[in-house]
């Protein structure tokens, strides 16, 4: 069946004239499938955080857009991502998060793999008690590894395997935040927030990367962080977001604050930045803490937001940490009615994608421009392959 292709011509124009993406990009399963390949599999997308597998042998099965994956820290502490299936009969290898003590043993016929993915044993493959066969080349039958890279503790994956090297693809954002290239410590179980939201994942990106909505949706910020204190961040084709010039550190009843990331520099004393790294990772940096949000697209109209908070030291104050988690949880929950409301709005069949404030919405337009460009490239490749 040939997909009816959406018209994106009016998305890739200047912010003054552009419309947003058509409704189908938020509600149509066929377009969701197209975007899965054009925007998520072909790029460096966020899957999880390395803190999900803190110790050697820790393994967590997960799904990424329907694909069963296994996040694992191997015996030498390297984080890896494999397709979570046995090379024999395609059986799911690991069903629940657990520590792999020795080998990953398939529960079906007990083929065994090392935590580095090497096929180490094939019991009875040549008949009872005969564990080898000339047709079964173990070196060719290791677990299928998905290209991955850890940056800011986020496990980024490139499913298609043909994106530019991570360091090349992310060079600009890494340079922008080079002062923050310091050890990050996950705050632990009290520093994780999971939000299930009835929205397309792109609306979460779009809302995150602009400051226009802040005074209306987050009135609590108005007392110290006014709209005019914010600035837009745009790197076409890579990322967009917003920054503030008046970040104020959280304090507890004794006036204590979180320790700073050492050597981060005076530039960041009152500055903080919030950037959506395309496609699906939302990052925030401050002098004393950071966060990463992985947007997990579960379907055209369902997204799970996995929020993780990080500090400069492994033993940050628990009370302050919990206060900070609550603060951010409130902010992120305040955004839910917005992204869910926009999602419902995408079912109004006369909606033309909307218009942008050329001044306030340009980070969102930057994202739409990227989306449209990637989809058009994807379509051109598909046509060339026909």
């Amino acid at each position, binding site marked *: 069946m040939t997909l009816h292709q959406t018209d994106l011509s009016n998305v890739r124009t200047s912010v003054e004239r552009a419309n947003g993406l058509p409704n189908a990009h938020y509600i149509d399963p066929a377009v969701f499938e197209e975007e899965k390949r054009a925007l998520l599999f072909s790029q460096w997308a966020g899957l999880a955080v390395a803190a999900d597998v803190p110790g050697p042998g820790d393994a967590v099965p997960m799904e990424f857009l329907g694909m069963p994956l296994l996040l694992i820290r191997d015996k030498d502490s390297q984080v890896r991502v494999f397709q979570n299936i046995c090379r024999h009969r395609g059986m799911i290898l690991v069903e629940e998060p657990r520590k792999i*003590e*020795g*080998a990953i*043993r398939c529960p079906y016929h*007990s083929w*065994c793999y090392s935590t580095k993915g090497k096929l*180490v*044993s094939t*019991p*009875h493959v040549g008949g*009872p*008690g*005969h*564990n*080898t066969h000339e047709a079964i080349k*173990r070196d060719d039958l290791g677990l299928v590894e998905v290209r991955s890279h850890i940056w800011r503790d986020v496990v980024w994956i490139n499913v298609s395997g043909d994106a530019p090297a991570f360091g090349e693809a992310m060079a600009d954002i890494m340079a922008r935040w080079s002062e923050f290239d310091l050890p990050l410590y996950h705050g632990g179980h009290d520093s994780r927030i999971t939000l299930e939201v009835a929205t397309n994942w792109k609306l979460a990106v779009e809302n995150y990367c602009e400051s226009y909505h802040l005074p209306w949706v987050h009135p609590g910020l108005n007392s110290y962080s006014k709209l005019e204190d914010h600035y837009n961040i745009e790197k076409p084709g890579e990322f967009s977001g917003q920054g503030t010039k008046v970040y104020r550190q959280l304090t507890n009843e004794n006036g204590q604050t979180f320790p700073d990331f050492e050597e981060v520099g005076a530039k960041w004393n009152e500055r903080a930045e919030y950037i959506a790294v395309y496609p699906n990772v939302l990052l925030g940096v401050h002098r004393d803490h950071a966060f990463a949000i992985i947007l997990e697209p579960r379907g055209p109209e369902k997204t799970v937001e996995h929020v993780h908070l990080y500090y400069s030291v492994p033993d940050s104050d628990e009370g302050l940490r919990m206060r900070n988690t609550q603060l951010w949880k409130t902010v992120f929950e305040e955004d839910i009615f917005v992204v869910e409301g926009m999602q419902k709005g995408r079912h109004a069949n006369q909606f033309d994608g909307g218009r942008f404030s050329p001044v306030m919405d340009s980070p969102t337009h930057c994202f739409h421009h990227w989306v449209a460009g990637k989809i058009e490239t994807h379509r051109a490749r598909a046509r060339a392959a026909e």
Partner: protein
Amino acid sequence: MSQGLEARLLAAHEGDDRFALVRLYTQAADIANDLDAECFFLTYAYIFALDAGAPEATVLHARLKAHGREE
């Protein structure tokens, strides 16, 4: 295999006691009447040792390899 050993093996399977499975399948291999039976039981012992990260895996692998049953 004796009935007692078989019962202990079944109990170890029931309790998912992999270290006991390694020990009991090794015993079964040690008392097997022929090479095929020995390697059959050694295979189970080896696989459960691999699964559990048990140190016996090295010796069990060596036994199987010596018989041409492992790489």
